[in-house]
C-alpha cells in the first residue's frame, strides 16, 4: 500500500503555495490555514466541488470543495469589473477555471523529466457526496476558514473515485 510518506512528492510543499496563490484573492484578515493532514474520507460534504485529475508518472486527483457562500464570493471577486452578470453558471465557470489553473501549475510542480503529466478538464459537481472507490487510497486534506465561508482542498492518490452518491 502506498502511504503518504512514499508519495513521490510532498503535497504540503507541492500544493500549499499553489493553493495559496489560487485563494489569495479571497483571503482576507482572520483566515485560519491548516496544513495538509491525512484523512480517511472526504467529509464533510460541502455545496460545490471542483475536481481535476493529473495522470502520468504522478496520479493525483485534486478536489476543491466549497461552501456555496464562499464559492459565490470567489465568483464575485473574479468577475469584478468584467461586466459579467452573477449567476450559478458563472460561479461554476470560475471554479472550473480556478481548478484548471491550480491543476496546470501543479503539473509543473510535479513534472518529471521527459514524462508528460496529463491534466483532465475540470468537473464541477453540486451537492454530491464523494466516496473513495478503493480502500488503499491516500487522501490529504487542507482546510481554510475564511470570513466568507469554508473551503477544503483534497489531494487524492491514486486518482480513483468510483462512487459519486447524490445526496
Amino acid at each position, binding site marked *: 500500500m502506498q502511504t503518504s510518506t512514499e508519495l513521490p512528492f510532498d503535497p504540503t510543499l507541492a500544493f500549499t503555495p499553489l493553493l495559496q496563490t489560487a485563494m489569495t484573492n479571497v483571503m482576507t484578515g482572520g483566515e485560519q490555514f491548516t496544513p495538509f493532514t491525512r484523512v480517511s474520507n472526504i467529509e464533510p460534504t460541502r455545496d460545490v466541488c471542483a475536481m481535476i485529475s493529473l495522470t502520468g508518472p504522478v496520479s493525483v486527483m485534486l478536489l476543491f470543495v466549497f461552501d456555496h457562500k464562499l464559492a459565490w464570493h470567489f465568483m464575485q471577486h*473574479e*468577475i469584478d*469589473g*468584467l*461586466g*459579467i452578470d452573477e449567476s450559478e453558471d*458563472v460561479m461554476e*465557470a*470560475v471554479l*472550473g*477555471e480556478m481548478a*484548471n*489553473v491550480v*491543476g*496546470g*501549475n501543479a*503539473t*509543473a*510542480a510535479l*513534472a518529471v523529466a521527459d514524462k*508528460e*503529466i496529463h*491534466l483532465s*478538464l475540470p468537473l464541477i459537481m453540486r451537492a454530491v457526496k464523494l466516496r473513495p472507490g478503493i480502500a488503499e487510497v491516500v487522501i490529504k486534506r487542507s482546510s481554510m476558514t475564511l470570513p466568507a465561508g469554508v473551503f477544503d482542498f483534497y489531494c487524492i492518490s491514486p486518482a480513483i473515485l468510483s462512487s459519486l452518491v447524490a445526496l
Partner: protein
Amino acid sequence: MSAKRVMCVDDSPIMLAKLQHVIESLGYDVCATVLSGNDAIRRYDEVKPDVMTMDITMVGMDGIETTKEILHQHPEARIIMVTSHGQEQMVVKALKAGAIGYVMKPVQSATLNEHLVRALT
C-alpha cells in the same frame, strides 16, 4: 494611430472576459472573442486580427491543432498561446505548431504585454 487588434480564443467565458479586460487595459482593441478552435478558424478571415491569443486546452479542437490550421491557411498569423499547463511538452508542441510565444495562466498583464509587443514588431 489605431490600436492593434487582438482576437482571443478560449473555451472559458470567464477567461475570455479576463483576457479582454487585461488586453484592453493595455491599450489594444479586442476585436473578437471566440469560444472554440473551430470558431476561431471560421472567424479569422472575417476578423483578420493583428495578433491572437490561443488557449491550449479546449474542448473539441485544442489550441495546438487550431494554431496549425490557422497558420496553414494564414502563414502570416501571429499567435500567442495561453496555457495553465506548466509542461515543457505542451509548450514545445505549441511552438512547433507555429506559435510565437506563450503566457501562463493566471495571465499577468506585464507579461502578456511583453508578448504582444514582441508579436507586433
